[in-house]
């Protein structure tokens, strides 16, 4: 499992913090936005496309100031299930129940400690499948 991570300039500082943190925890992290991309659109496209290369195993994280823009971009791709996250509770639930393969976070919204916990929970969470699969099948038929 690879974790692909990208950001624009406003998300750069938090992105770099999360990259270091996940590397320390021995996750395989690919930083696609060294120095920060021009805008959230470019960062989101890069992360999303690399996640789609192995969509069952890869996970993506996109950071800008609010998380909303990257969510609008990433989630438009078939087989991407993206979660715009502000809290640790959702971070746990979203892979477990929703099979999310990308998350977005806003550096202007959450602090570093909360962001680290969200990233960690997302990185370790497993999809529980079962009854949840019908909803994932429905989403994957769309767009």
């Amino acid at each position, binding site marked *: 499992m690879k974790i692909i991570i990208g950001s624009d300039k406003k998300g750069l500082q938090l992105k770099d913090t999360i990259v270091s943190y996940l590397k320390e925890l021995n996750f395989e992290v690919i930083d696609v936005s060294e120095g920060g991309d021009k805008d959230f659109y470019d960062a989101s496209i890069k992360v999303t496309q690399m996640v789609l290369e192995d969509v069952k195993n890869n996970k993506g994280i996109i950071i800008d100031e609010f998380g909303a823009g990257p969510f609008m971009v990433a989630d438009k791709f078939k087989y991407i299930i993206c979660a*715009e996250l502000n809290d640790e509770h959702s971070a746990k639930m979203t892979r477990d129940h929703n099979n999310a393969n990308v998350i977005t976070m806003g550096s*202007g919204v959450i602090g570093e400690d909360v962001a680290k916990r969200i990233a960690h929970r997302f990185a370790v969470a497993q999809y529980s499948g079962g009854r949840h699969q019908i909803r994932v099948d429905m989403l994957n038929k*769309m767009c």
Partner: protein
Amino acid sequence: MKVAIGCDHIVTDIKNHIKEYLENRGFEVVDCGTYDFERTHYPIYGKRVAEKVVTKEVDLGVVLCGTGVGITNAVQKVKGARCALVGDVAAAVYAKEELNCNIIGVGGRVSGIGMIEDIMDAYFAAEYKPTDENKELINKIDNLIDRTDYIGDDHFFDEFLEKWDRGEYHD
């Protein structure tokens, strides 16, 4: 102001509360369901709300499930939907002002009802501020999906619902 609202069975009571809150502000609210606590599937309701918004049957939409993640995903898969899932006022205002967010999502088990009311106030009060830069971004987002064939197709998910009824999805 005409607003479509949708939820899954985890947060129907909170959806009803938001509906009443918006009606008290003078909005016309179209309740797309679900209407009770019987187990159902969030994509059905997310798709319905998004379709009403992108076909201009309503002005804006509100969606929620436990975390908000599931239902906002269904929304986003509809061409023309620009949804934000928020837990604070700052992101709600940004999404509306900068990205002309047309459907706002919240997590009914994440945010409390006072916080949700504040988010609603801020989202509906904020106005899109067009700039050349954000118009181009919005255009790029809207063009990421080509398909529109499932808009208005109420039987689009039937194959999965039949599989569900046959007991083929189980924990």
